[in-house]
């Protein structure tokens, strides 16, 4: 983690975590001992004072964490493209008529055939990270694949194979 998160004990109240963003704003979370938590945004002119104090319910906090976590995951995957020379990341949609709709990931034998890996599946706005071979595809899934140009093209071709019964 490249960002420094400061943790401060609030005796009698709970714990506060806060961090400074690159844009110069400070934000934090106050976790009360009784299970309550507040998202706090600090005043840009007075970085010690919190300008907004937003109480979050358990569900709200979870939803917010999911959104932030998911966008982070995609950002990291995109970053791979720059980091590893020769390795590419691509999002490939499974065509509606694909023979793999409703069948497990293992059936594609994608890795053995192309050396490219399926590292995640995007389904209805959610990210399923590292799907195992028993993971079943649905129509509308988008798979995130990492591999060489050739490998990615190979996976695209495999997923595009039409269903012989359809």
């Amino acid at each position, binding site marked *: 983690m490249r960002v420094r998160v400061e943790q*401060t004990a609030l*005796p*009698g*109240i709970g714990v*506060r975590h806060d961090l400074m963003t690159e844009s110069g704003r400070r934000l934090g979370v106050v976790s009360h001992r009784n299970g309550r938590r507040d998202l706090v945004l600090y005043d840009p002119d007075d970085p*010690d004072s919190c300008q907004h104090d937003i109480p979050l319910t358990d569900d709200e906090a979870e939803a917010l964490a999911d959104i932030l976590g998911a966008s982070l995951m995609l950002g990291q995957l995109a970053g791979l493209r720059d980091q590893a020379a020769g390795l590419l990341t691509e999002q490939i949609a499974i065509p509606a008529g694909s023979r793999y709709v409703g069948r497990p990931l293992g059936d594609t034998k994608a890795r053995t055939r192309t050396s490219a890996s399926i590292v995640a599946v995007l389904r209805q706005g959610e990210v399923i990270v590292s799907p195992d071979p028993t993971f079943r595809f649905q129509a509308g899934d988008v798979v995130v694949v990492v591999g060489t140009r050739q490998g990615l093209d190979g996976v695209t071709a495999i997923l595009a194979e039409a269903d012989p019964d359809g």
Partner: protein
Amino acid sequence: MHETTTLLVEVGALLLLLGLLGRLSRRFGVSPIPLYLLAGLAFGHGGLLPLNASEEFFAIGAEIGVILLLVMLGLEYSANELVGNLRSAAPAGLIDAVLNALPGFAFALLLGWGWVAAVVLAGVTWVSSSGVIAKVLGDLGRVGNRETPVILSVLVIEDLAMALYLPLVTALLAGVGFVKGGIALAVAVLSVVVVLTVAIRYGHLISAALSAKDPEALLLGVLGLTLLVAGVAAKLQVSAAVGAFLVGIALSGPVAHHATELLSPLRDLFAAVFFVFFGLVTDPLDMPPVLLPAFLLAVVTMGTKLATGYLAARRAGIAEPGRWRAGFALTPRGEFSIVIAGLAVAAAYPVEPRLAALATAYVLITVVTGPMLARLPDLPWFKRWLRRRAAARRPVPVGVAD
């Protein structure tokens, strides 16, 4: 039989009045403590309408009130928090003690009240009101502020210091002299250290013995344990309040959390009784002569508290506005000051009789003005003043003529 019915009428009427006063204070967003004190003054010796039948009830209720105030204070902290805070916040705590205890001490000597009263008044001016300050921080939405840990750690050190100060005062007031006072202090230090060690190492065992699942058993268990330990502590001349505080610290986890919920209503009831009782035993006729001294003392010691908060926040690397917020937030004195003055009132050898009146007036002034002062740093003119100050300090760049 007649006595009992009078007692019911008096207690009932007074509690009903306190309820209305509490509601009134909430309407104006101030602490109810000053109103409870005033109610006590009105119904006490020499007041508007003296209550006679219920005095014993209020005396015992007040005793329980102090014990509950302290056990709840202890429940808020874990032993780890207290010890962890000790190292980092000790310098701030020392500044706090020197700046705020000394004025009270010197003031009592100046008035010629003798040194026992001076030690008591030093405690009265030293300790900020944790309860009032916690409420102010919540009301002003400052719990997340970066100067808040500084304020809280000053309060923690004060609370811990009280565990050593109260037994000393108790011994002095009992007229046992310096040798026995020293022994009482040694016993207190030893018991604080033992309780902290046991609480850190075996706190979960004590908490496990009192199951958090059954509310009735938990309420009776915690209340019983607290009163028992407080009583034993009082027998050892260590002050019942300290015993209760230590019980609060020793409990942790879910037991502490549930006990806090269960004891809160009881604390509210008996703490109100305590404040009323303190007013009851203070003669309002003693008040006018001490009003001016109390006002002077309040001005001086609110100034020194402001300095304490400012310096402590500066040490923690907080910017200018945050230092002022920390300083003003610490100014209210409240329950602890009254607890200390209450010890003096109940002493076997009564010290200066005007002490109770002075303490009442002093707490009335600080607890009313303190929370109002805490709002100052948020006002636009105060912020403008701070900006002008900051601008004046910065070296003015020399204009280049072209």
